């Protein structure tokens, strides 16, 4: 197990190193000059040169790469060109929105998807199954920004129960923060729950036809007991894999929902930084996201290995 973990750790370090090089090169070849974006069309050449010098853009690329990577290793994500604020601080502020939002959306997704998927599998080919599968088909097909707009029109404009958008921060109390995240979390959870429910259903159907479930039934368990005690736990493995992917997506891939509800989340930070060519922010935040995905995968790998001894030997 230890050699397995060490090998995986080495692979992780290598992946991170390659990722950092790719991210850096992509930022280098991206057309557009950060100084020109900041100073606009009336900027004179000498002003642009002065700003590039201040931002450290005049140093050769390898030197800048090395400075960036050593900074990352020390936990220093650099300084935003445009905000003139440490990137660490920007990320921390955005995580205060994105992390709770992603967790809320994921909790909602799980709460909807697991029971629905299990119910559909248990009553396969019945009206219930057909109804649930039909509903999830719609859930996958409906664009979530459009659903988000409908939510805002109903709950914010017509009923006035919840704000139409924005985020007041956590200083005003837990409820005011949670309130602002309810509609976006619902909008995010709908398509994710639809996907997850479908995965749950098919995975459960697979395990229900496995030999050990048949044995359990032969032992005298009812279909419901066999499903709960034996099939469900095994069916959850692919579901957990999908949930891991969904969490990464919910953390940074929610820029459209953040726009509809004008939330200051991580997705909009990256989007805005790309538009303004705030390369310091883009580089470091993208790298941070890459690292989080890789590390989550690493942990998942270890968990699999712990659960399934066959994987250890093969690796």
């Amino acid at each position, binding site marked *: 197990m230890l050699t397995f973990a060490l090998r995986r750790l080495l692979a992780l370090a290598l992946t991170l190193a390659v990722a950092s090089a790719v991210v850096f090169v992509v930022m280098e070849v991206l057309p557009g000059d950060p100084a*020109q974006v900041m100073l606009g069309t009336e900027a004179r050449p000498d002003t642009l040169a002065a700003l590039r010098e201040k931002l450290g853009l005049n140093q050769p690329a390898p030197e800048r790469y090395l400075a960036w990577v050593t900074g990352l290793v020390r936990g220093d994500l650099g300084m935003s060109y445009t905000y003139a604020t440490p990137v660490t601080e920007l990320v921390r502020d955005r995580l205060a929105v994105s992390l709770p939002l992603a967790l809320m959306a994921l909790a909602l997704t799980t709460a909807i998807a697991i029971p629905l998927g299990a119910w559909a599998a248990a009553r396969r080919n019945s009206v219930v199954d057909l109804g649930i599968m039909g509903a999830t088909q719609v859930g996958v097909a409906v664009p979530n920004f459009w659903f988000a707009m409908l939510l805002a029109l109903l709950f914010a404009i017509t009923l006035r129960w919840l704000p139409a958008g924005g985020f007041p921060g956590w200083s005003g109390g837990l409820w005011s923060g949670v309130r602002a995240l309810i509609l976006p979390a619902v909008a995010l959870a709908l398509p994710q729950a639809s996907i997850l429910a479908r995965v749950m259903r098919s995975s459960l159907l697979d395990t229900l036809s496995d030999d050990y479930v048949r044995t359990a039934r032969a032992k005298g368990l009812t279909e419901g007991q066999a499903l709960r005690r034996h099939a469900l736990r095994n069916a959850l493995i692919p579901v957990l894999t999908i949930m891991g992917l969904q969490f990464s997506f919910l953390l940074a891939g929610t820029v459209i929902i953040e726009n509809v509800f*004008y939330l200051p989340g991580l997705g909009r930070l990256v989007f805005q930084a790309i538009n303004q060519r705030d390369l310091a922010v883009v580089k470091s935040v993208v790298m941070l996201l890459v690292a989080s995905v890789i590390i989550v995968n690493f942990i998942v790998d270890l968990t699999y290995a712990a659960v399934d001894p066959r994987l250890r030997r093969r690796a």
Partner: protein
Amino acid sequence: MTLNRRLFLAGSVASLSAAGALGGASRALAAARKDLNIGIRLEPPHLDPTAGAAAAIGEIVYANVFEGLTRIDRDGAVKPALAESWTISDDGKTYTFKLRSGVTYHDGAPFDASVAKFNLDRARAPDSVNPQKSLFAPIEAAEAVDPATLKVTLKQPAGNFLFGLGWPAAVMLAPATAADAKTKPVGTGPFKFANWTKGASVELVRAEKYWGSPVKLDKAAFKVISDPSASFAALMAGDVDAFPIYPAPENLDQFRADPRFKVVIGNTEGKTIMALNNGRKPFDDIRVRRALCHAVDRKTVIDGAMFGIAKPIGSHFAPQDAGYVDLTGKYPYDPAKAKSLLKESGVPEGTKLRLVLPPPDYARRSGQIIAAQLKAVGLDVELVPMEWAQWLSDVFKGKNFDMTIISHVEPLDLDIYARDDYYFDYKSQAYKAIYAELTATTDQAKRIELYKKAQEQIAEDAVNVFLFMLPKSGVWSADLQGLWENAPIPVNDLTEVSWKA
């Protein structure tokens, strides 16, 4: 992608808005509020107007937090601000400013002539990053004669100098706090900076002490809402009270029909043009440029892309500015004439041209319509959507384009046609002579004559295809008064804003 999405939303907004209006009727009206929530479309990168070109900076801090020696008022006129009055020497080269006394910054630091000198020197220093450094280029020297007197000597007379000093890029920072102004702006204005939640809002509160007439608001929050449909929802739900530059003209009629709101259409200085690369074939031929002018029907563009609320222009000059000549009839819409001019200049039917479109909606929407109109005269136009940073480097700097649609928002920016190496690459000795004379003239009547000559020369040479003035469509609460109707410069001056009791 963007287009599909907008169409999608238009349907959903229309179907539910009736319910929205009913729900709103029961909303309780608070009496004489002292706070204001303003929606802005783009977040400023930082809050120092002397170090960044983004209009969003001035839209928050100008006149509210920071003030200059002069200021531009709601009609675009130059008014005294931190300078109480001034005299100009007969040769137009020496400006003596009498500064307001007893003015302090929000941290208590005093404002005087030495501070003013510091700012002018800082803006024109070799390592200056001022986005409008050219405004300060005419300055030979600045001298603090005594605490209340500032003497500025110019290298040559500059007719626009006082106007330039009223721009956001010329506001007066305090020497001790200038370096941190990007994140902690400390000014002399009626509001002081309170808080900036990055990505969400910037909050200002009333300053305890202010030299001018006291403001009516206690606090103001600028909320960043970039999505057009979200801005609709935010106004309808009462999350913001005003959207001075409302981004979705398709919803304006709904607000007009709703008694809770006022829709105010005003002017900007945004001259929207289809710029032609004069240095590149076939646009180096004046007949081709004129053919394009005849081929574009402004009325259709304005009705289709701007929902009919924009004013047409025929040269690079805003109709509300003194000295304007109406040249919109110079090249009337005439596809037949356009075709014959193209034929005459040897441009074959089916010639491929690229029209680059930067992100703003006015450009993307106008581009679609113009492409169709140019197709009608036998040109094959490829639309190239481009994001802003790439537009700046490819088109503006690299001159790698055929045609592009862009709004020039700087007021009275006739100088760009006299610049060598400007992106549309217009080279005319006749125009340069007119502009040189304009720069050296301080007499207003003579300047107006020269403005006219300059506009006519630009139209004569059909440098670009002049489309329309970018309108400023604002939506705000019917109980709110004092916001600017027009935008002579892109700012949100809150000094006269109040709620009806």
